[in-house]
């Protein structure tokens, strides 16, 4: 009986302590979950910021600084010039396309970065982002579209894959009168490490850069159909001279 009383007394003391410990564990678990959510928000800001900083570096021809935004083994693919691998080759690409570091009098290469859709992977160290670039340059207007991948290394977000297919390039005369064709590897001095991952033509043709995200409302992914790229999915050649895409002489290309 005495033993039973002691046992009861011990239990009555221990139970609240155990309950308190459980509560603290539960609170810590809630804080862990909250921490994760806050971190995702910070990550999304960081990834948007990274791509905007990229744009501000292009503006002022800061190619070395720009290259340092990339992971060591990153890839770059702009227009139709193919894939350039690694920081060193990315810097070669930029120097080949624009000349040495530093903006020069009379040069304008504004590369504005708008309309970000940034998504952080559940692992918290990978991310994807779609962004529109709006170019004001000595050549006229340009519209590359970015679908990029990012990686968090040692707590710092870096560009892992930069892919910027062109929507439209035009001279100052405007897109009603003038359209610049897409670039190709053979139109560029620096050879790529890999050929283009996709072949397409720019405006007046079209190419739908696959969306990294599903439809935000239905949640369904978008599947590229035969109309994904007007240039190669159609047997007809669409151009400003041939806007309806009637078959060129000699049949389908």
């Amino acid at each position: 009986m005495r033993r039973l009383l002691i046992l009861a007394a011990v239990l009555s003391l221990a139970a609240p302590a155990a309950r308190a410990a459980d509560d603290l564990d539960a609170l810590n678990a809630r804080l862990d979950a909250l921490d994760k959510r806050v971190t995702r928000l910070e990550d999304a800001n960081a990834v948007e910021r990274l791509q905007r900083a990229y744009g501000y570096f292009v503006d002022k021809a800061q190619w070395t600084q720009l290259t340092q935004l990339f992971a060591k083994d990153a890839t770059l693919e702009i227009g139709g010039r193919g894939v350039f691998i690694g920081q060193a080759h990315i810097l070669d690409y930029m120097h080949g396309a624009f000349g040495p570091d530093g903006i020069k009098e009379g040069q304008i290469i504004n590369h504005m970065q708008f309309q970000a859709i940034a998504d952080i992977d559940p692992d918290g160290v990978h991310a994807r982002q779609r962004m529109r670039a709006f170019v004001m340059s000595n050549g006229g207007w340009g519209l590359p579209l970015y679908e990029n991948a990012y990686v968090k290394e040692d707590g710092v977000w870096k560009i892992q894959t930069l892919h910027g297919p062109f929507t439209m390039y035009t001279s100052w005369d405007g897109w009603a009168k003038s359209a610049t064709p897409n670039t190709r590897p053979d139109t560029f001095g620096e050879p790529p490490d890999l050929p283009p991952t996709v072949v397409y033509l720019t405006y007046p043709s079209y190419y739908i850069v696959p969306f990294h995200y599903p439809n935000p409302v239905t949640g369904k992914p978008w599947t590229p159909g035969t109309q994904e790229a007007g240039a190669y999915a159609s047997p007809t050649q669409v151009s400003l001279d041939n806007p309806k895409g009637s078959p060129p002489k000699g049949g389908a290309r």
Partner: protein
Amino acid sequence: MIRRLAFVVAVLALATPALAAPDPAALKARLEALRARVERLKDHDQIENLQAAYGFYFDKALWGEVADLFTGDGAFEYGQMGVYVGKAHIKRALTLFGREGPEFGKLNNHMQLQSIIDVAPDGRTAKARFRGMVQLGRANQPGQWGDGVYENDYVKQDGVWKIARLHFYPDGFTDYDAGWTKSAIPLPGPSAAIPPDRPPTEIYRGFPGVYIPPYHYAHPVTGRPMTIPEPADSVLGRKE
């Protein structure tokens, strides 16, 4: 190195609560740290909205609304017009962009885009870079395109973010029909009618001149401060 160290500290901070015995004081500290991070995220959003509001008011020449976004001793600097200090003087200076209020046939768009916002760890001050595309027009007169970059300072007073210092660095303005390949409209200097409190803080000219508005932020990946020499300018006599 500092970044790595910070990362290790962050990892430890995350790992510790899981390992250590539940401790109410530690829990409170975690909650406090988390609350501060959420506050910084909110600050970030509020500054983005504040600057967007500036743009929307500026578009329609609501100069009173624009001036009210500044602190009492706030400073406004647009290109080479010099620095205007204080709400009243800023409001007066803004009439250099036209009379108060919208006008039929006037376009005064000043877009606020591409933000890079940095809130100080204590949450009291912040800095931001924005892209400013500009569309100007008067009915039946040539339209103008403009572009530039803002580098602004903000301060939180009584829980409200305000503009402490605004500096718009235009790249240049051009005639809409001609385009910047053919037309370059020089930046106006300080007004004689409404003189600024101080001369321009930095000397630059519009396109075809080139100038790099100093970046308020360190390199996003290397973490190193960016001290980039200004490009040469044949008119200003600036050597590289």
